[in-house]
Each structure stands twice: as structure tokens, then as C-alpha cells.
């Protein structure tokens, strides 16, 4: 137990070569890897946030690095506490994921474009604008997006700004909770392995 207090930051990050570390790295890098691989899958791996998506991805990747660093400083008094901390952060991640899933079903709309063999995901709001109400009174969200086009400027024309901001923030926060919860859990999982490394003098 005492070995943990003498653990260096270098030893800690070297232990990310372990299974826990690799899993933490996969979750931490997911905002960037899903950006690289977007378009190669027909599922939505990051909530579409319109013009804010790039900065949201970069911010989440930075938050994830910050969480790995915070986990290092959380090591004091570990062993029994660490198991509880790992379970709590894992539970937080799982709950966040279910919240994200619920919000995804509520606010994400998929517009298929069979002629291009592709699909576009769009985050919509909960309140339609007067323009949408007057021109598309009986249209579903998907039909309205097909009629106007699944583009950011059209989404802003069809749903109120406030409802879009709320929907996107809710999606982003729950997505962040999922990713950061898993990063924290797996980063905390690295610490006992770091102790093992320290004890064996590597």
C-alpha cells in the first residue's frame, strides 16, 4: 500500500501498456478515432453537434487526458477504496451511457440517401420553429429533414435555437459522462498494476 505514495507519474503512465491502460486509452482516444473513421460505418459513434462537433471532440479528448492525470492523484489510500472507486466510476459510465441512449433515441434522426448508398445523422431539437409549423404541420422529423435537406442551416431553420442547444448539450454531457467514466475506471484500474510494477523493480 505504501508503494503507491512513492509511485511516479512516469511509472503510472508506463503501466498503461496493461489491459486496463489500453482500455483507458481506447476510450480516451475515441473522440478522435471515431472522427477519423466517421463515414466508414453506418452507426453514429459521436453525437452530431453541428458546427460545434470539432471543438467538442477535441475538448473531450483533453478532458479524458485530464481524467487519467486526476486518477494518478487519486491514488492516496487505495486498495479497498480503489475497488469502490473503480466500481463507482464504472457505474457512473454505465448510467451515463443509458442516459445517452435515451437522448439519442429522442433527438437523433437518420436520413437515408439510398441514391448515394449513405446516411446522414442529425441532432434535432424538441421545439419546432414557426417556419416549420406553418410549412410542415403534419410532417415527421425525418420527412421534414428530407424535404429541406439534412444540413445544419436547415436544422436551425426547423427547430428553435434554445431546443437545439439543450438537446445537443444533453447529448454531449451524457456522452462525456460515458467516455470519462470508463477512462476514470480503467485509469484507476492501472494503479494496482503500477504497484505491481514498482514492487518488482521494473
Amino acid at each position, binding site marked *: 500500500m505504501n508503494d503507491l505514495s512513492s509511485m511516479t507519474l512516469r511509472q503510472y503512465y508506463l503501466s498503461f501498456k496493461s489491459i486496463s491502460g489500453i482500455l483507458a486509452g481506447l476510450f480516451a482516444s475515441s473522440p478522435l478515432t471515431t472522427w477519423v473513421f466517421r463515414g466508414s460505418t*453506418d452507426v453514429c459513434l459521436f453525437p452530431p453537434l453541428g458546427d460545434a462537433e470539432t471543438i467538442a471532440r477535441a475538448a473531450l479528448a483533453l478532458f479524458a487526458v485530464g481524467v487519467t492525470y486526476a486518477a494518478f492523484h487519486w491514488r492516496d489510500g487505495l486498495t479497498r477504496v480503489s475497488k469502490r472507486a473503480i466500481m463507482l466510476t464504472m457505474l457512473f459510465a454505465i448510467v451515463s451511457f443509458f442516459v445517452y441512449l435515451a437522448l439519442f433515441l429522442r433527438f437523433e434522426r437518420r436520413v437515408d*440517401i439510398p*441514391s448515394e448508398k449513405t*446516411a*446522414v445523422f442529425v441532432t434535432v431539437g424538441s421545439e419546432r420553429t414557426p*417556419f416549420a409549423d406553418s410549412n410542415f404541420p403534419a410532417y415527421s422529423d425525418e420527412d421534414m429533414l428530407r*424535404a429541406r435537406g439534412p444540413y445544419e442551416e436547415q436544422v436551425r431553420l426547423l427547430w428553435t435555437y434554445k431546443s437545439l442547444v439543450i438537446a445537443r448539450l444533453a447529448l454531449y454531457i451524457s456522452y462525456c459522462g460515458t467516455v470519462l467514466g470508463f477512462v476514470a475506471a480503467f485509469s484507476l484500474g492501472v494503479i494496482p498494476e503500477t504497484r505491481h510494477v514498482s514492487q518488482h523493480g521494473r
Partner: protein
Amino acid sequence: MAADSGSIAYNLKVTSSPPGALISYHRRGDPPHTYAERTNATISSLPYAMLYVRIEKEGYRAEEREYDPYHDPTHEIDFQLQR
């Protein structure tokens, strides 16, 4: 596959028989936009949206048709004008 909506556009070829008809088009909720060229013409870089395409030629009945770019991979619309 999923795509970035900002990069999705298509070119629509509008033909008529006889050619030389005035082309205008619009999305639901927008005023009609008159295209600079007459049929037969290709309108480039159109956004994916349901489009109302209208054709007018003197001596012929004007015709308007809804075009669905989502399900038509040819991106061509042809009008047979009637007197």
C-alpha cells in the same frame, strides 16, 4: 455508411421536349428560384432536399413536378411539354 451532411450535393440534369424551356425550382417553404440556363441544362451542387421543379415554355402548358434526389440515382428529370 454514414456521411457528413455538409459534403453531400448532387447535379440535376433537367431536360425537356422540346428544349429551351425556362427552369425554376424551390424547396417547400422557399420562393421559386429561376435558373440562368434553359433546358436542356444541368443544375450543379444542389443540396439533398425534395425539390419542386417547374418548366415554362411559350406555347406550352407549364409543368411542375416534385423531384426526390434521395431515391433517384440518375439525378435526371425529363419533361414532355404539352400544348
